[in-house]
């Protein structure tokens, strides 16, 4: 037992805090315990290992040491594993335990192998530590910068950039809009009104020539204003049955008759 790193009575050492801190998690401690048990990880007794681990955890609890969750999770799992390993062989639960023990042993072997690899690497002559490369390497490379790196994408991008900048420097000239004025609308409305016997939509009084949506909106607004103007003078009646509904207009016969 002299090889075993963890003392049989963890309380006696009094150094458990430091000791657990020295391990990077439960797997680390397990590998260490396994190492104490036998060098050949293929033949270690998982059951003995579990007992030792649980003893350490129990000891840590006795001195009211705060244990990280992963230690407690591992302890609980190992307790479960132990219960399975103690069952008589042959039962399904015992086989489950054996399989789990084999997985654990494989993980411990892998970690142990990586420990050994790390140790092997550490034993190599390291560059900059044990061996040194040439401190002042010679640069025997000449750089020829005589050729041009040109590509079509760059050319096109440059062209667009030039046009954009050139364009932004020109003074701002607003585009000429052909606006259908209220005066235009009054004239058209007056002309058309007589030829319409009944309610007609405001839309019908727009000039056919007006093209863009903006111009059409402007014409609609002008025509509405012209309609309101005529209605105030009693020349026509306007009607909108509901909000945002079509605006209808019709000649006001009586008013006209009275005036005449």
């Amino acid at each position: 037992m002299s090889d075993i790193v963890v003392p049989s009575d963890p309380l006696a050492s009094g150094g458990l805090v430091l000791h657990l801190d020295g391990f990077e998690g439960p797997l680390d401690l397990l590998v260490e315990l396994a190492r104490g048990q036998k060098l050949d990880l293929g033949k270690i007794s998982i059951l003995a290992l579990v007992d030792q681990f649980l003893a350490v955890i129990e000891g840590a609890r006795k001195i009211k040491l705060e244990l990280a969750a992963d230690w407690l999770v591992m302890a609980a799992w190992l307790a479960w594993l132990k219960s399975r390993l103690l069952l008589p062989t042959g039962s399904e639960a015992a086989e489950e335990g054996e399989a789990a023990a084999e997985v654990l042993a494989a993980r411990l072997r892998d970690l142990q192998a990586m420990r050994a690899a790390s140790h092997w690497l550490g034993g190599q002559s390291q560059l900059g530590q044990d061996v040194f490369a040439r401190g002042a390497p010679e640069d025997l490379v000449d750089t020829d910068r005589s050729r041009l790196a040109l590509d079509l994408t760059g050319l096109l991008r440059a062209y667009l950039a030039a046009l954009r900048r050139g364009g932004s420097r020109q003074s701002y000239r607003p585009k000429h809009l052909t606006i259908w004025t209220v005066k235009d609308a009054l004239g058209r409305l007056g002309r058309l009104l007589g030829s319409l016997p009944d309610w007609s939509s405001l839309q019908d009084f727009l000039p056919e020539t007006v093209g863009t949506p903006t111009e059409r909106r402007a014409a609609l607004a002008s025509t509405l204003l012209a309609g309101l103007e005529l209605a105030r003078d009693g020349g026509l009646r306007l009607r909108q049955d509901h909000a945002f509904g079509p605006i209808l207009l019709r000649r006001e016969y009586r008013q006209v008759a009275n005036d005449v």
Partner: protein
Amino acid sequence: MNDLDEHLRLAEALIFASSTPTGARQLTHLLADDVDVEAVIAALRDRYAGRGIELANVAGGWQFRTAPDIAPRLRRVIQVPRRLPRVAMETLAIIAYHQPVTRPEIEEIRGAGLSQTTLDSLLEAALIAPKGRKETPGRPTLWGTTPQFLAQFGLADLRSLPPRGDLLVDAPPIHAPAEPPSDEFPPSPVSC
């Protein structure tokens, strides 16, 4: 192995590993105080005589260097093509698309002055060439691209340049369907 051999090994390793020329003081510090550094250096220099590298006395110290007769054979030339400055690239692009074009016209398109240096750099690279003069007051030189320009950009001829129309993708469409282009009017409650 005798003492001189061991001193040679140490001096050789230190001079090799140092990033700067190794001085007599460093060598003395490495070897014992009573070692004749000059003698060690002389023996080391002899050892490398006629080899691919030699021990050179530089900047008050010793350093290994490639033998001068070999250095040219080890030299490798790496081509690092340089890029044209932005102004030159833009000028070249304008000349390519607007040729034959005068310098004032280029300045007009770019919306900025054009330095003689930029024009010279394009001339020097044989990417542009004068193509006669414009019959306007002052008879300014007309510029155009060269066959070298086509070769550099891997173009068969000037018609292989992407058409201008394909480039101006961000020009606003004239008749946008349904939506007004850049809504100059707030949405009106008057519906159509």
